[in-house]
């Protein structure tokens, strides 16, 4: 997993362009087709995540009624009757189906054949079809619906959790960089200690010790993201608080709060937002990493990471199942990286023009 702290140091991605000398400012102002494709993809992901509950999608938890139940249920150690209960949507989970079957609830005779015409397209690990746009997973659930639902987790973990980390970190950095002295010493010691953990290990520790839930995954990401933002915003605050316009504001008797938020923050915001976009990409990958360790969002909530991990179990028989969420995660990360890079280039131009 790429590391957040690694990005704050001499930045591998930002140091890229000696092109800056040769290209004209006008040429660099044009964002290009790739940029808009990236924006479009991110917009699509955000749209899916927000409107997932009202979109006409298939169930993310219930398998296709025609998928091969015997095999799926055998994995859960469930008998035929329980499978039929589950099949006929009378039970929400295989576990409940088993409990109902044990308790003697038998499915009505006429509902046993919920799927009169099973086809190849409706089995588990299916390829895309008109019914299942991106096929089905190893439990016969619709992959497309799960991808869209997974976008919600990706954005919560990415945009929201990293956003919380960004706000916290930027505040710490602004205060430390503006007031200097003991305040800075104390705050930056904490930041350095937090940065002494490798990011994924810290996230693992937080989720492992606090328990597996969406909130704890987000909390871990937010905590891991904070120190990077603190360092970044402190270093820009240091350069800006020496500038003439800050001095002018001070001479005019502006309060500390006004200077920090009205004079310094707007200047610090640009590099912070550029870093934010990259950090979102890193967080989405981190969720995938946690999923592989069984520490991401608990089932049945689908996330891209848990989908990849589920699909990985059947990679030898049906590589397509793992390919879909992997590609979606890759393209999303790529899009955020690309937008972040462009943003940073724009920012550098502005900096140079000052």
């Amino acid at each position, binding site marked *: 997993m790429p590391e957040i702290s690694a990005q704050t140091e001499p930045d591998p991605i930002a140091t890229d362009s000696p092109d800056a000398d040769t290209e004209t400012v006008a040429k660099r102002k044009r964002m290009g087709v790739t940029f808009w494709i990236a924006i479009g993809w991110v917009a699509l992901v955000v749209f899916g995540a927000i409107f997932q509950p009202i979109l006409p999608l298939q169930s993310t938890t219930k398998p296709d009624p025609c998928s091969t139940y015997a095999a799926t249920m055998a994995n859960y150690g469930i008998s035929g009757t329980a499978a039929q209960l589950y099949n006929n949507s009378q039970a929400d989970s295989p576990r409940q189906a088993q409990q109902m079957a044990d308790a003697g609830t038998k499915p009505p005779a006429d509902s046993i054949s919920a799927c009169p015409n099973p086809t190849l397209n409706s089995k588990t690990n299916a390829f895309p079809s008109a019914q299942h746009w991106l096929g089905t997973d190893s439990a016969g659930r619709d992959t497309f619906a799960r991808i869209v639902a997974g976008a919600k987790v990706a954005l919560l973990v990415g945009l929201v959790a990293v956003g919380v980390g960004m706000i916290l970190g930027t505040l710490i950095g602004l205060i430390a960089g503006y007031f200097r002295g003991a305040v800075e010493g104390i705050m930056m010691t904490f930041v350095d200690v937090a940065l002494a953990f490798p990011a994924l290990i810290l996230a693992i520790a937080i989720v492992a010790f606090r328990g597996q839930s969406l909130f704890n995954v987000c909390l871990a990401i937010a905590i891991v993201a904070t120190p990077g933002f603190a360092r970044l915003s402190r270093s820009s605050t240091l350069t800006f608080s020496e500038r003439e316009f800050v001095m002018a504001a001070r001479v005019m008797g502006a309060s500390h709060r006004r200077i920090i938020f009205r004079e310094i923050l707007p200047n610090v915001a640009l590099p912070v937002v550029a870093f934010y976009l990259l950090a979102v990409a890193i967080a989405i990958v981190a969720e995938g990493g946690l999923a592989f*360790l*069984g520490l991401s969002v608990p089932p049945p909530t689908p996330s891209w990471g848990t989908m990849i991990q589920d699909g990985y179990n059947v990679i030898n028989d049906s590589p397509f199942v793992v390919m879909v969420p992997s590609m979606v995660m890759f393209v999303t990360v790529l899009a955020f*990286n690309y937008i972040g890079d462009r943003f940073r280039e724009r920012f550098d131009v502005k900096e140079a023009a000052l």
Partner: protein
Amino acid sequence: MRVARKVLLSLLRLAGAVVAVSFLTFLLAHKIPGDPTAIILQDKVNTMVPCGSVLLGETVDCGALAPKVVHPRGTEAPGAVTSVCHADRCVIASDALRHQMGLDQPVLTQYVHWAGKAIHGDFGTTYDTQPQPVWPQIAQALPPTLELMIIAMVLSLIISIPLGIYAAYREHRLGDRILTTASFLFVALPNFVLAIFLIIIFVTWMGAVQSVYVPWSNGVGKNLSTLAIPAVALSLGMASVYQRLLRTDMIATLQEDFILMARAKGLPTWRILTRHALRPSSFSLLTVFGINVGTLIGGTVIMEVMFSISGIGKLITKSIYVRNYPTIQAIVVLIAAVYVAANVLTDIFYSVLDPRIRHA
């Protein structure tokens, strides 16, 4: 003199960071819900104490079966023993054991006690019905992890240095453009996704290599071939970062007068590139190489789980699964220590290598 002072300061910082990290981990582990004594006592409670209580609608029969408790987090785990059996007897047993294990002491006392032993390599014993010492487990898991990390590091340098030199030399030409695009793609490609693609191509379709780890003892050749995919998956992302860094620095170096001088002397191009330009261009690469140790540790953990390599990553996930907190704690502290040490070493190495920094 300056260097010695700097080294000393760095070492102090290292010690401070390790203490802080280990204390934080200790606090995190201390605050976990669930009582370690409950896990140890579970066996005894099971045979000694008659029980039978209702939890979330399920009646638990404690005959020959272990008491099943629905854990607050929703997973089934041996947990709050007190709520399963007759309260007074369990509580008394737990308290006695808790005192014996020192768990009734304040956190700080517990930490000092733990740290004092940890310095001597004694990381305590596992919370288990049959407690085992933690350190031998870790020592056993270290070699495969180190092997994978070292192979990935070496591989990333082998890939990135020639490509970085080439891209700088052919700046803005076709080769450079292709490399720039490729490195952008590989930076964004998560290592586990890359591993999945490689498995699909080389294992599922071609059947060329095995995707399940084979230890050293079963043959070095086999061992290396099973490490090929995880090592490549780990190194390509790092390699593209290094390639970019080297390219940027090298382009700047190639404009220097001493390169012009070397060229004027009629030295062959490859010699100028490797002997004259490479060393002064490699500083940012080295810095990031050191920082990347942390990234690599995270990646290695995931690779170990994916390829069933019985290393540190596998051990920590197993320990998480069975809630074996002393082991998790020891591993987290160990990894943090290695990470901080790598950062400090890079710092020192950097100032030793670059005379401009040494004399600044």
